[in-house]
């Protein structure tokens, strides 16, 4: 863990996460909160292909499809699973502090 990184609460565990993810902005960054099989995951919310928010797209099982050109990313790892995308999606470590869902965020 980098000394510059901090854990930032982004949602509460008792807030329902919409089926296709929840858009969260942290320090100007677009992040997406997803649940897959009861676990929370946070990724960048911006497609690595062209600008589009993944939370405007569609979650199927453990993948999210970009609404723009159907680039498909694996939510837990950010890996590309289909579509015209070549670059993986950034993922962020998540931890639960009491009722807070926190994401490890590098301020740098």
């Amino acid at each position, binding site marked *: 863990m980098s000394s510059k990184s901090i854990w930032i609460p982004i949602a509460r565990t008792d807030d329902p996460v919409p089926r296709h993810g929840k858009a969260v902005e942290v320090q100007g960054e677009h992040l997406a909160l997803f649940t897959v099989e009861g676990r929370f995951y946070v990724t960048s919310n911006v497609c690595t292909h*062209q600008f*589009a928010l993944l939370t405007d797209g*569609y979650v199927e099982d453990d993948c999210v499809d*970009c*609404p*723009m*050109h*159907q*680039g498909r990313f694996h939510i837990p790892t950010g890996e590309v699973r289909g*579509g*015209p995308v070549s670059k993986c999606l950034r993922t962020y470590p998540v931890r639960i502090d009491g009722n807070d869902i926190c994401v490890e965020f590098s301020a740098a």
Partner: protein
Amino acid sequence: MSASEETAARIEASAATVRQPLARASHVPYRLYSDPAVLALEKERLFMKDWLAVGRVEQIPNTGDHLTLDVFDEPVVIARNAKGEINAFSNFCLHRGAEISRKGIGNVTEFTCPYHNWLYDLDGNLVGAPHMRDTEGFEVHKCRLPRVRVDTWGGFIFINFDVTAPPLAEFVSVFAKEFSFLRMEDCAIGAQVEFNLGCNWKFVVENLFDVYHVTTIHAGTFGKYRDTVDYFTDAPGQASLFGYYKSAPSMDSGKSLFGHMPWLADKPDTFACSGFQGPNIQMFGRCDGVIVHTIWPIAPDRTRMKSYLLFPRSFFDDPDFQQKADKYADYLKKIIDEDEAAITSLQRAANSRLFHPGRMAKLEHGVYNVLNYYLDRIVPRH
């Protein structure tokens, strides 16, 4: 009788003036050069059936390089994919028809329609479309832009809009057999010039094969170097449009700035040849390079000529190569400028009710041959 059949019948009647021995021939009625219905028939019977040279392979050497063109109102993209293959497809989005690629030469990793962001790969396949999930029966991966046939010969990229046309290799076989010794595939574009001429495309084609005007209009340029002889033959078919004669490298001084093409080392400095490949390619070979003109009708009285000045790739190592190649281009511009005033005045004669085309001179053998070749394609002889 349909409108196009009526036009064909009128052309056939006009053809009579050149469908006889040269010594008895006259120029054809100028309605053939001014009537929009004639151009429409030429489009259907020539340009939409034949292979058309639209560029050179060295213009798009890398993955994602592409040419974006309008060919007879058909917007076309020619792109090289990651496998190195060249594909041609329509330049309109499958959704509303917006252009997906801007005119000219460029490089992209994919084509994004600027209107609604539909995305295409370098082969013209639709790979993504925003917010179409609720559109029933729409499957992105089953959609592709209409393909246009594409192939290459002599370093040129040819396209064809007719799915039933014979392969390019067959189409160019006679020309290829005659002129393979020029090795145009081992040349590259040293310079390119585009001319916009205010006359019918056939006036341009005829002019390039007209020996008769060379010592008058071009007295101050290449007329000095070229022998005024009829070098065209009465050979059947396309061979009647091939010729060999004596001239000089296409330079003011009549002297090459580069020396001979390596594969023409045994030819004299005065070596000159010319050839026609229908519908619109005219080639002029010299000891030191090849100039290829492609002639494109824009309107009955407007023509665009794209000229490629080709030189062997080894010449490109010359540190002054571009400066020298540009001199060849300047000289070509000077020559076509000399022609322009005359051939555009022909177009004005076409609009006069008092003008009746005159008799042909023996030195117009090339004009006579190319006119007959063209007419036989538009209105075949019975």
